[in-house]
């Protein structure tokens, strides 16, 4: 019957609608390549301009100085121990929340995940306030004798402790997700075969959780080596330099003349991060066991006699690591000046009022961060929505590549990104002839690059959960791609877009790592001002600004969680 193919008039050929889709893809492609890929390539070409061997010897030169070596060793050391702490805390809590009958799980999870919302420099500041000589902790009768003279958190141990707690949520979330996906039947089958609960956990659950644990640990490690806020507040005064703080100090001290040198250090840092990311991807791909879940997750074992001891221990721990530091930080903001002890006579709101009404840099910082975070949130989501649509619904290979490319500025250490941004935007922009360096725009560009992935993840996962047929039905009604995007896809994506925008806002509002190298006078951000105030010795004002940030961040988190009930699975990184 194939001979009949030649007959029949061809009525095809008119396809102007395809062009709109291609044009959209081209615009998005330029955006992602220009913001996320080009600066990083620029960093590579700066070092390897003279060929591979010359580049390698240049990196080795930069690394051979004692300061750089010490920073590298310190970075690895502190990150290693911090990761161990994150794994212990994250895994223990994931198993407790996932497999036991402990009560008030949502609140427990919320407290554990607080570090996701609180920027590292504020966590560091809060811990300093809690352990430091001025802490309200020493007001508790009986603890007075423990009051330290010098803050014991300054230096390596403090960095390990705070970074370890800061990144525990990553391990927790990875293991928790794997536990959620574990069919209850597997545990029940082990029990039916004669295993006690602990036996089933050790023989069945733990081995199945290993890939998730390892992947979470790799992620925590990558975050630790890229962390700037904690080493900046604890390591610089504690004389424990790490790569991120060394790069910062060199560039802050010598200015753009040190660019080539710090670019080499940044590449070393990026290399370490890439090893961690590679390990994570490899582990998940190679070893993750796909268990297809039929029926529900396990309801949890009864703790029995251990119920109350466990409950008391866990809540005391959470009180100590999540609640107390924030109370201490607030207390530090309520004293009139540094060194004054908090009491009924000394308590005052003057600092909280002063930083928003009298302190110029803080006022500017709030305005700038508000502007930057809002713009970044809107622009990023505006790009993420059509990209996710092209990726999921139109199955565009190109969109898939762009999605992967957008990950690079997010997973690489922020300090690497900011060096790349300086290298790219210090020279005058071709057509305009002006340099973006020393303006607020370089901050905006860096935020757009940094946080695109943060918006893409929830939007892509929500997009994947939209039933294909809903768009196909619109197609059958005669609606072209852009019309469908506007009338069907975007309205259905709306909750995820809102969540994505809020996540970007939260990340950008108190951002420090990227801003630390890109800010300039008049263009301060909130994160930078907290760091500078602390650096100047005005930790009371730093605490006051932090309290404002905490207030805003927690309100927004509450808002997302309220909206979160209506969100599809996987949109929020935390889910209670």
């Amino acid at each position, binding site marked *: *019957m*194939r001979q009949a*193919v030649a007959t029949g008039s061809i009525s095809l050929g008119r396809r102007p609608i395809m062009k709109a889709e291609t044009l959209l893809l081209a615009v998005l492609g330029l955006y992602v390549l220009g913001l996320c890929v080009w600066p990083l390539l620029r960093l590579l070409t700066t070092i390897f301009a003279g060929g591979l061997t010359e580049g390698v010897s240049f990196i080795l030169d930069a690394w051979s100085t004692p300061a750089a070596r010490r920073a590298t060793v310190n970075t690895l050391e502190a990150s290693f121990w911090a990761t161990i702490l994150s794994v212990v805390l994250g895994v223990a809590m994931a198993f407790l929340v996932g497999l036991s009958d402990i009560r008030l799980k949502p609140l427990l999870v919320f407290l554990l995940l607080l570090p996701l919302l609180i920027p590292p420099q504020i966590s560091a500041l809060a811990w300093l306030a809690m352990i430091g000589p001025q802490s309200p902790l020493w007001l508790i009768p009986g603890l007075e004798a423990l009051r330290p003279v010098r803050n014991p958190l300054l230096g390596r141990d403090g960095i390990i402790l705070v970074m370890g707690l800061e990144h525990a949520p990553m391990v927790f979330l990875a293991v928790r997700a794997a536990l959620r996906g574990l069919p209850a039947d597997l545990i029940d089958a082990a029990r039916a075969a004669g295993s006690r609960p602990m036996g089933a956990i050790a023989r069945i659950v733990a081995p199945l959780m290993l890939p998730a644990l390892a992947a979470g640990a790799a992620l925590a490690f990558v975050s630790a080596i890229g962390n700037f806020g904690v080493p900046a507040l604890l390591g610089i005064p504690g004389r424990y330099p790490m790569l991120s703080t060394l790069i910062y100090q060199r560039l802050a001290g010598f200015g753009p003349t040190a660019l080539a040198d710090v670019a080499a250090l940044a590449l070393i840092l990026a290399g370490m991060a890439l090893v961690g990311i590679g390990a994570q991807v490899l582990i998940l791909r190679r070893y993750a066991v796909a268990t297809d879940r039929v029926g529900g997750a396990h309801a949890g074992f009864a703790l029995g006699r251990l119920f109350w001891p466990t409950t008391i221990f866990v809540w005391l721990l959470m009180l100590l690591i999540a609640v107390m530091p924030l109370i201490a930080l607030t207390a530090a903001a309520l004293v009139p000046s540094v060194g004054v002890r908090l009491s009924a006579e000394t308590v005052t709101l003057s600092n909280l009022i002063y930083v928003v009404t009298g302190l110029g840099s803080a006022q500017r910082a709030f305005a700038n961060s508000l502007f930057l975070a809002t713009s970044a949130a809107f622009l990023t989501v505006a790009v993420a929505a059509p990209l996710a649509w092209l990726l999921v619904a139109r199955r565009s290979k190109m969109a898939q590549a762009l999605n992967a490319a957008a990950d690079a500025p997010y997973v690489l250490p922020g300090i690497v990104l900011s060096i790349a941004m300086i290298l790219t935007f210090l020279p005058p922009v071709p057509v305009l002839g002006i340099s973006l360096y020393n303006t607020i725009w370089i901050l905006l560009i860096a935020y757009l690059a940094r946080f695109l992935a943060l918006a893409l993840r929830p939007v892509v996962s929500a997009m994947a959960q939209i039933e294909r047929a809903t768009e*196909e039905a619109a*197609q059958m*009604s005669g609606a072209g791609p852009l*019309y469908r995007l506007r009338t069907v896809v975007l*309205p259905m994506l*709306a909750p995820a877009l809102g969540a994505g925008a809020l996540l970007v806002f939260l990340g950008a509002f108190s951002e420090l790592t990227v801003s630390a190298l890109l800010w300039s006078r008049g263009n301060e951000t909130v994160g930078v001002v907290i760091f500078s105030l602390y650096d100047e010795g005005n930790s009371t004002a730093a605490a006051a600004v932090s309290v404002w940030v905490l207030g805003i961040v927690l309100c927004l988190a509450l808002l997302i969680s309220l909206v979160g009930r209506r969100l599809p699975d996987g949109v929020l990184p935390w889910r209670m």
Partner: protein
Amino acid sequence: MADVSLRGVRREAGGRAIVDDLSLEIAHGECLALLGPSGCGKTTLLRLLAGFETLHAGEIMFDGKIVAAPERQLAPEERRVGMVFQSYALWPHLDVAGNVGYALKVQKLPKPEREKRVAEALETVGLPGFDKRRVQSLSGGQRQRVALARCLAMRPRLVLLDEPLANLDAHLRETMIDEFRRFHAASGATLIYVTHDQAEAMALADRIAVMDNGRLRQVDTPDRLYQEPCDAMVAQFLGQGQLAPVTVHGPVENGWVDVELFGHRTRMRARPDCAPGPAQACLRPGDLVFAEEGGASMPVTIVSTRFEGGSTLVRVAPEAAPETTLNLRVGGRAPMIGERRSLAISDGWLLPVASPG
């Protein structure tokens, strides 16, 4: 209204042909059911017609104009084809009127005209006054009606239905089948209806196309398909046909021919070109009845019985061939297992194409 013609259509996936050299003509206003076991390629064929899948060989024509060929495909939105999805695919952010009137908005129809057609469509599917209701507040049957109204309002030339009743309970299915018939009459559109449920296909379709392994096995009216299946697959897939080896004696006269079944002489229907010699017969459970011993009946032993409510399905083994079994339905008292009875064969059909082996 449209006539649809498929010529040598082929689609591959993973190196395997999902739809293979398939040719089919569907007339103006016809209701054709695509019937087959799951994985036979019927949904892929439907999506090829809709334009969601691309074909690798052949062509699809609507009203004599090519809409799909390997090198060029008309986009789904340009085909003016309506589709009713198994999951209904209603848009949750729009109300009922918003869903039904969507296509009209795409066509930029003026608002009064749009509202009139939405109201008409809702009236036709028995949901008048539902226009401001939220989709989520509707029951499964109501949602499917809204999906139908959405299709009706756009006045498509061709409507594709993808297992539209699969998500509904048995009782509702009955009602919706009547609904689809009314829909077919009201719209006058050509209907292509994918299902794996033969009762649905029989009740609705003017013709049924039975698919298996990406190929068409037989396209016929429901009656002919049941009475005269072309091969073993169709015979077994529809109406619980059972196959039995027979020997044909003599020529076909008025559509009937003498055959020998397990040593027993009887008459069965056959095509005029049926040649004497070995052949394969399709026997329906209803073709077999218990009879008085002797005469024209065949001695059998009862192997098993299964009570089915109104009747009992009895499995018997002919004494001439104890290793084969035949099924029949009896009302009243079920026979005892091991009991010896006699079987009369009232009807049978000789398959034109014997299955290999």
